[in-house]
């Protein structure tokens, strides 16, 4: 269960990634952010970003017409 949902559906690159990063920065350590996105590149780019930033990529769930990408802030 995410602590916060960032609804970036309809937003194009780099919108979803930038909105996710903004939300992660504002979150407390231990919180999980769910990004709702329709942008195809997000599910490829966000795991790579998590690796670089040292945050935990939780996973991708295919929803009805969009994807939910969850990231946990671990530091």
């Amino acid at each position: 269960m995410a602590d916060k949902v960032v609804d970036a559906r309809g937003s194009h690159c780099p919108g979803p990634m930038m909105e996710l990063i903004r939300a992660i920065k504002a979150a407390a350590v231990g919180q999980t952010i769910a990004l709702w996105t329709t942008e195809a590149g997000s599910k490829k780019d966000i795991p790579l970003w998590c690796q670089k930033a040292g945050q935990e990529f939780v996973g991708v769930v295919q929803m009805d017409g969009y994807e939910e990408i969850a990231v946990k802030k671990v530091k």
Partner: protein
Amino acid sequence: MAKELLIIGAGSGGLILSNTVARALSREIRRGEVTVTLLGDRDEYLYQPGLLYVPFDLMRPAELIRKVKELLVPCVTFMHDRATRIDPESRQVQTRSGRTLTYDYLVIATGSELDLEETPGLKEGAHWFYDLPGAIRLREALSRFQGGRVVVALGLPHKCPVAPLEFVFMLDEWARERGIREQMEIIYAFPLNRAHNIQTCADWAQSEFDKRGIQLETFFNLDSVDPVRKEVNSYEGTTLAYDLLVAVPAHKGDAVHADSGLAVQGNWVPTHRHTLKVGTYENIFAIGDATNMPTSKAGSVAHFESEVLAGNLINLLTGGGAPHQYDGKTFCFIEAGMHKATYLSFTYDQPPVPGPPSEAIHWFKQAYNRIHWMNLKGIV
């Protein structure tokens, strides 16, 4: 009662739109059937694409500035004042000087501005060329620069998305021509895992980086600058030492959007990508950098949107419909160094494919820099 068109913002979009509508409806304006009012908080227009050349002393600041009034056709009423609140229900706009302006149709063309406050230490430790004082200060810094590490670090979104690439290509050749490139390192630090948000442009930029020995640092989201230690830090935990830091901070929309309850994330105005209508309002439109549309924040976008919207507003102000739709058309020249350039041309459906840089396109861009003023007047 005259039909009233009010345009907020005297940048490229606001000027082209005002002039195009007023020129087409000059008879109706003379007869008192239509008014076209442009509200701008600056009485001077700055040709922002020219700022790229100022650090290299290739354009003088005076070449980039004209009085707004000199750029308007006579039947546009210009008000030098700032919009402080938009009230869509009463169809009114309040201004800083206390005026209340009414409208039948409103266009928000308020542009975007650098957010210099978001990154601690940036104002003290970085240079930038996205405003005139910054470009002049960078020109002074470059005139003293003898070598060392230059870091160009970007935030997103920012206007003129290819200008930072142009800057590093020009910097590379500027340094080679001065004989100091061997004593220099150039690092391009970008928030995504490539050099540009458009993949085809990123691929082209990467091939130029490889040829020129420019290093790319990916996933670098500006977090803070330490002006004493001369280090720039990313949120991802990367620290880059620098001798000269050139930053392009993320931009934000005008405060009037949020103050009027019209803003979404970043203070942008929610705008339909084809009709240019704002939210659910039938009589409010937005163009240029102010929108949240999936377009580049570039002068050409404001220009092409203005042409589409002008066609619709001319119809609406004279009792017709609004059939014209914006298709995402964008055109950007890209200086690929000091002597060659290429360009990107694209729409929502067709991604750009940069061609090989040529001298001819460089001179075309130089010519455009000089005829831009005619463009604003709706002549070109």
